[in-house]
């Protein structure tokens, strides 16, 4: 009996397995296409909201105002933290992009990412659309993944806009030429622009880490304003703590500590160690908070 069963049963799983291969491959491709479709839908939702567009407009206008102000007032760095950059600006418009990224990183870029990430899940929960998406079913993990990718793309877009607008305006208002680095060496313009690209990507990575925190917070509430405020408070508190020497021991672990380490890219040779340290910090924050978001979102009751 058992032998007979074993004999008849044995080919079963094998042939079933073979038969399943083709459909699975098809399902796999279909799933990838469907994932892109959902991402496209999410992006069009994020990038068409007037609130988000207004944020991007602010992100575009502020560097422009900064550039004009620096052009009108003779750029003199004085003793401020950005003294070197501002001193350089007079001779090279490219530096406007570095100055703009540094200044926007203090509040406006984190604000932009906080709004979009804090709203990502909480906004859908608050308006009730989340229950419709999940009943479709969009899949909780899948939806969360798409949401996070959209947040990262939005943060990247904000960084690119800051860099792009300030670079264009810097070129229009100031002379452009070979770039003198913080370490005193002068590199060709193309090299300088490449460094600007890496700086922009580095800042976008920092924003992606903040976006993960926002995504996690967003899964705990139905009120997007609460989530947005929480992320902002966290970012500002971290920046404040980073400036208090007594907290020196925790500084390297603060989410904002490595944000400005992109100045390593403006040295020759590049201080790779600092950069990697920063990227590692962003990666760890992103992984931890995406995991928190996932754990919460896949187990929570959707009652809104």
């Amino acid at each position, binding site marked *: 009996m058992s032998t007979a069963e074993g004999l008849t049963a044995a080919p079963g799983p094998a042939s*079933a397995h073979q038969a399943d291969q083709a459909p699975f491959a098809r399902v796999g491709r279909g799933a990838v296409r469907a994932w892109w479709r959902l991402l496209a839908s999410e992006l069009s939702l994020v990038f068409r909201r007037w609130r988000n567009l207004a944020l991007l407009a602010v992100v575009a206008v502020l560097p422009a105002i900064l550039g004009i102000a620096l052009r009108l007032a003779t750029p003199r760095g004085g003793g401020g933290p950005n003294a070197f950059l501002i001193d350089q600006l007079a001779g090279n418009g490219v530096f406007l992009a570095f100055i703009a990224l540094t200044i926007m990183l203090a509040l406006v870029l984190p604000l932009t990412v906080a709004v979009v990430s804090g709203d990502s899940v909480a906004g859908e929960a608050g308006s009730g659309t989340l229950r419709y998406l999940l009943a479709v079913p969009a899949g909780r993990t899948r939806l969360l993944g798409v949401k996070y990718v959209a947040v990262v793309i939005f943060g990247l877009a904000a960084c690119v806009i800051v860099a792009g607008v300030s670079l264009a305006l810097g070129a229009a208002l100031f002379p452009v030429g070979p770039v003198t680095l913080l370490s005193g060496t002068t590199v060709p313009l193309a090299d300088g622009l490449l460094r600007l690209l890496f700086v922009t990507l580095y800042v976008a990575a920092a924003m992606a880490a903040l976006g993960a925190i926002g995504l996690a917070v967003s899964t705990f509430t139905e009120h997007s304003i609460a989530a947005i405020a929480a992320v902002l408070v966290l970012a500002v508190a971290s920046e404040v703590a980073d400036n208090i020497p007594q907290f020196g021991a925790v500084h390297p672990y603060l989410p904002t500590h490595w944000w400005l380490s992109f100045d390593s890219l403006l040295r020759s040779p590049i201080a790779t160690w600092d950069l990697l340290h920063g990227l590692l910090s962003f990666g760890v924050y992103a992984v931890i908070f995406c995991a928190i978001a996932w754990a919460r979102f896949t187990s929570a*009751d959707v009652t809104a």
Partner: protein
Amino acid sequence: MSAARRDSEEADRPAAGGERRRGPASGVTVTHAGPSVANGSPNGDAPAISPLGAAPTRGETGAAVTTHGLTKRFRGGQVAVDGLDMVVPRGSVYGFLGPNGSGKTTTIRMLLGLVYPTSGSHELLGTAMPAGAARVLPRVGSLVEGPAFYSQLSGRGNLARIDAADRAADPRTAGDRISTALERVGLLAAAKKHYRAYSLGMKQRLAIAASLLQPRELVVLDEPTNGLDPQGTREVRALVREIARDGTTVLVSSHLLAEVEQICTHVGVMRTGRLVFQGPLDELRARGAARIQVRTPAARQAAEILTELGLEDVQASDGEASAQLGDEAPERVCRELVLGGVPVAGLDTPRPSLEDLFVGLTGEGFDVDG
């Protein structure tokens, strides 16, 4: 055509359902726990299972929704749903009734996998939930607790968003399917209007359209008539009838029996988280035991005779005596009364209306017990 397709799916599903090495007899009880299989029957099991496909789709195996002791206790300790054993037969229009706050919406949220039960389990279309959500929910359309959409998008834009979230949806046919769904609910003319400009009735209809983007085997409508005027209510009823006409099972909840009474084949009645009645609507109707009412100046004497006849719940008031009629024939009761010397001025055997039965089951008005 669609019926034939459904039949063949029915025949396939058990073959896919993990039932491989057993005989046809035991196969009858297997309805779930199988892996999703898109192909037919890989190793010629289909003949062994075929009796299932031919078997009537009513009853335990063919149920569109089955719950086993489904319970939800919220964090505050409040028990919203308490040991629910619900069976929605395939092809039925199941009226899920109960006052506001009796646990209907929580139940529906659990059915759809939005809320996780504290204990108990359930199956949709024979597939265990929430584990099988990705497989079974594409065949289930739903409207949960009122419409909720993106106010900045048009009606069409909203349906496109919902459709984009569906892994199983074919993007090439999305435009056509959205148009068809909008047309079915009469919103095609308002398709480009912003959602925020929709009236409440239009919002409800858009939510129903969202549940009709794909061919469905089960449609769950939670309070689809909530907040609608009588005209809108009638439209929704007509829509439900139309959905049910081609064999789709419809689970429709309402706190008003009158709104769904005309379209339901089955009802389940909730009261404070428990199912107090479930079955065909006719069964509920038959449950309403008739009383016998005797108008007479000698009410006390009449009551004595009614008691002697063995009738229950005898009551006597000024000028009238009444009792539960039970199996007694009213003409015999009348003769006994007359023979007993009771002057019978009038005799009636009223049955409680469905509404009375419903209220009897759920409690009067703002009855918040528990």
